[in-house]
């Protein structure tokens, strides 16, 4: 529990394409920029080198995309909580490679350089970066967060996100649905009442949520979506067309060259973004053969190409309206979220679906569609932290996006919690045995809307154990299914005749066990240590270089002659020693060597300083005296005590 009331809880949008961290500054949520001053941290993770692992996250990782695509992962969110059979098709369009020995139903492992990582581990690296950015900004540790997920994420995907938070050293106080978060951000400064639709089309996911706003209560009444629909699909379509073109026109198969595919990817994304404001773009890619692929793409042609993709958002919108029991005319406001809603034909589509134009309305885009989800997460973080004047009376009531069911006889699903039920929600079911003396009952829990269990998402298999042996049909095992406020399922069971708490063994279908998560925390902790040690070593080498370079230049300075032979000999000796130490990786010895050389040259530094000052008195300017020091007046004195950073 939070002992420290002042500790800031951050809100995190862990996006497919971009991630952000925000917090509530007084009455307003604000995004925390990274060291580079940018708000968006691309959800890209690169393993810069093996040996002591070095990860690069965000903008810095993007350069690796073209240079060493096999060492980079992006859009890892698409892989969260999924199995190998789910992703085989779409992985064809991504440069990632799965581990060779993956079994069906196992958590994915992706090859990165010579190592393998699960999607939650990759996401944890993105989260660590955001955590670091926030800690840098506050100058204090950050350990608690609200993280957003697509509303249409299933149990496994939510659990995977929570695991990622834990691996990153964050206590995830709540998973909030992205469209709901956006509604919170919008609802903050406009005490609105009425029915709002939030349409969120990002890089990899699509969500539609319909909410009822009343006196600060944000009640989600229906949600729908597609966790595999977004800008990535548009990009992949354009890439496929370019690859076909190149094959057709130039007879070159570029699919065998990941670098070229990535170059095409970069180019078509730029073209797509330009087309949101320009009527025409020119695509141009240099090919490995020295030839160049060029093509003009007018906006109309682009809109034709992407129509099948964006039209896939219509059905979920209609279904959500139907589930909410409202007509398009009853929607008072439509809020657009996600980078892909900047595409004019996407915004037009929402206009058509919700009959906006005819009613003299426009979709809302006042808040930056890239940032609004993170801002809403910060609002929810504030509410969970006890609230403030800005958030008092605000309460979020969300729903579960998918029906929960159990596999009954013949593989048919018996639904126990319907989709769009307000969460937390629960259902109690009774089970019995089919054979005399049976002590185990297996329950298969699935999520989805289809009739047959095999067509739904398998969540977990529960094995009820320790049932007292009785005649078949006599035991009465009560199982309680509870979906918590994060949309995550909990199960407990009791044998009613004996009153015994039944033991449950859970085998999550696409999830990590608690032990696995713990191991991964330890693994990455080792890495964090290794990362840190490596950074310190690099810094210490830089210090040594600086002082060695200064010593090299020393004999050309008049002050050098004022030293005794003994002093000069000592300096030369220490210099050689430090040169050797610098090649090794003994941090302590390297620091000691640097300090020793620094000490030995201190008198020389003083003499040189004196000379500079006296020449300044003699009429030389401080500037030119500084020039004599070789570094300019504002540069740190090369012989000043070495600063060994211990951060």
């Amino acid at each position, binding site marked *: *529990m939070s002992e420290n009331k002042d500790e800031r809880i951050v809100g995190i949008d862990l996006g497919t394409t971009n991630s952000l961290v925000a917090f509530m500054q007084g009455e307003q949520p604000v995004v925390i920029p990274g060291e580079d001053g940018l708000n968006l941290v691309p959800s890209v993770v690169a393993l810069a080198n093996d040996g002591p692992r070095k990860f690069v996250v965000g903008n810095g990782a993007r350069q690796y995309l073209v240079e060493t695509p096999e060492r980079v992962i992006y859009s890892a969110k698409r892989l969260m909580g999924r199995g190998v059979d789910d992703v085989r098709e779409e992985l064809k369009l991504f440069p990632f490679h799965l581990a060779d020995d993956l079994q069906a139903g196992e958590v994915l492992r992706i090859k990165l350089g010579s190592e393998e990582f699960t999607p939650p581990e990759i996401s944890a690296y993105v989260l660590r970066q955001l955590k670091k950015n926030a800690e840098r900004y506050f100058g204090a540790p950050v350990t608690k967060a609200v993280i957003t997920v697509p509303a249409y994420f299933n149990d496994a995907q939510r659990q995977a996100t929570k695991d990622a938070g834990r691996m990153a050293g964050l206590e995830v106080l709540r998973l909030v649905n992205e469209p709901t978060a956006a509604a919170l951000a919008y609802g903050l400064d406009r005490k609105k009442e009425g029915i709002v639709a939030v349409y969120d089309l990002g890089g990899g996911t699509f969500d539609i949520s319909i909410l009822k706003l009343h006196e600060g209560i944000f009640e989600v009444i229906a949600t729908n979506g597609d966790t595999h629909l977004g800008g990535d699909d548009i990009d992949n379509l354009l890439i496929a067309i370019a690859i076909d073109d190149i094959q057709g026109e130039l007879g070159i198969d570029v699919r065998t060259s990941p670098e070229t595919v990535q170059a095409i990817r970069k180019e078509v994304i730029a073209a797509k973004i330009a087309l949101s404001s320009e009527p025409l773009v020119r695509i141009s890619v240099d090919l490995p053969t020295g030839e160049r692929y060029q093509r003009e793409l007018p906006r109309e042609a682009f809109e034709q190409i992407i129509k099948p993709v964006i039209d896939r958002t219509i059905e979920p919108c209609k279904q959500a309206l139907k589930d909410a029991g409202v007509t398009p005319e009853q929607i008072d406001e439509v809020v657009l979220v996600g980078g892909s809603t900047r595409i004019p034909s996407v915004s037009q589509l929402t206009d058509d679906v919700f009959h906006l134009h005819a009613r003299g309305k426009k979709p809302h885009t006042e808040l930056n569609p890239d940032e609004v989800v993170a801002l809403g997460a910060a609002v929810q973080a504030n509410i969970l932290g006890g609230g403030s004047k800005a958030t008092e009376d605000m309460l979020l009531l969300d729903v579960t996006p998918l029906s929960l069911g159990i596999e009954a006889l013949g593989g048919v699903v018996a*639904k126990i919690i319907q989709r769009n039920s*307000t*969460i*937390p*929600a*629960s259902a109690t079911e009774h089970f019995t045995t089919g054979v005399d003396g049976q002590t185990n009952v297996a329950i298969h829990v699935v999520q989805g809307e*289809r*009739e047959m269990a095999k067509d739904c998402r398998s969540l977990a298999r529960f094995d009820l154990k320790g049932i007292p042996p009785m005649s078949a049909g006599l035991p009465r095992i009560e199982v309680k299914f509870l979906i918590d406020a994060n949309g995550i399922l909990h199960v407990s069971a009791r044998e009613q005749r004996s009153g015994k708490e039944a033991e449950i063994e859970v085998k999550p279908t696409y999830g990590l066990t608690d032990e696995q998560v713990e191991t991964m925390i330890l693994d990455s902790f080792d890495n964090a240590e290794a990362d840190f040690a490596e950074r310190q070593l690099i810094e210490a080498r830089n210090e040594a270089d600086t002082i060695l370079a200064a010593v090299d230049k020393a004999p050309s300075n008049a002050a050098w002659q004022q030293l005794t032979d003994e002093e000069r000999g000592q300096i030369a000796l220490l210099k050689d020693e430090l040169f050797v130490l610098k090649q090794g990786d003994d941090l302590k010895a390297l620091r000691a060597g640097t300090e020793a050389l620094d000490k030995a040259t201190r008198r020389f530094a003083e003499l040189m300083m004196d000379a500079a000052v006296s020449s300044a008195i003699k009429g030389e300017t401080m500037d030119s005296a500084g020039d004599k020091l070789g570094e300019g007046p504002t540069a740190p004195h090369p012989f000043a005590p070495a600063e060994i950073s211990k951060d």
Partner: protein
Amino acid sequence: MSAACWSCGSALAAGAPFCVACGKVQAPTADVTYFDVFGLPRKLALDTSTLERAFYKLSRKLHPDVYARASEREQQWSLEQTSLLNDAYRTLKNAIPRTEYLLKLEGVEIEQDRASENGAKKESRMPPDLLEEVFELNMQLEEMRMNQKMGEDDPQLRGDLEKAKTQFEGQLAESDSDLQKLWVKWDAAVDADDEASQADAKNKMVALLDRRRYVRNLVRDVNEALGA
């Protein structure tokens, strides 16, 4: 036996989810009905907008968001109390689930209709007065399916099915208004403590729901055949 608030010691009403004196969430008690959650008698004609207001008010008291910084025990209670509240609201706000729930409390084994929600066929008893209509409808449905298999379209048949659909939908609407009349009868019998009249209303509701379920499945079958 009356309970006391774990936090301030004030006396608690039976099954109270939170303490009126200090506002703190309480441990859930067994055997609380959905009607108890809202402090309502076991009656059926209720005003849904009043129910909604009560739901919002209780949510503000019990929701896990309010207890995010409380002890682990309070968090767990808040989770359980809120799920009970949500389950209760979801059940009571809609006419059919509310009626089914009440009948279940009254000892009626209600045939859970969840399979039909996802399209699985479930045989329910055919109301005898529908025998003829259903016989004819089944013939037409069979023909329609044959046609579809052959890729043919018979506008006459389609028209007949549309007509049947409208007729059955009319029956559904009718059964809804009949149900409301039975609610009034039930509620009055509860107020008058008239057991015979309660039993009568109960049996009529069971029969009505059976019939309604049957008709609804018919409508669904027709919709499926029409490809709607």
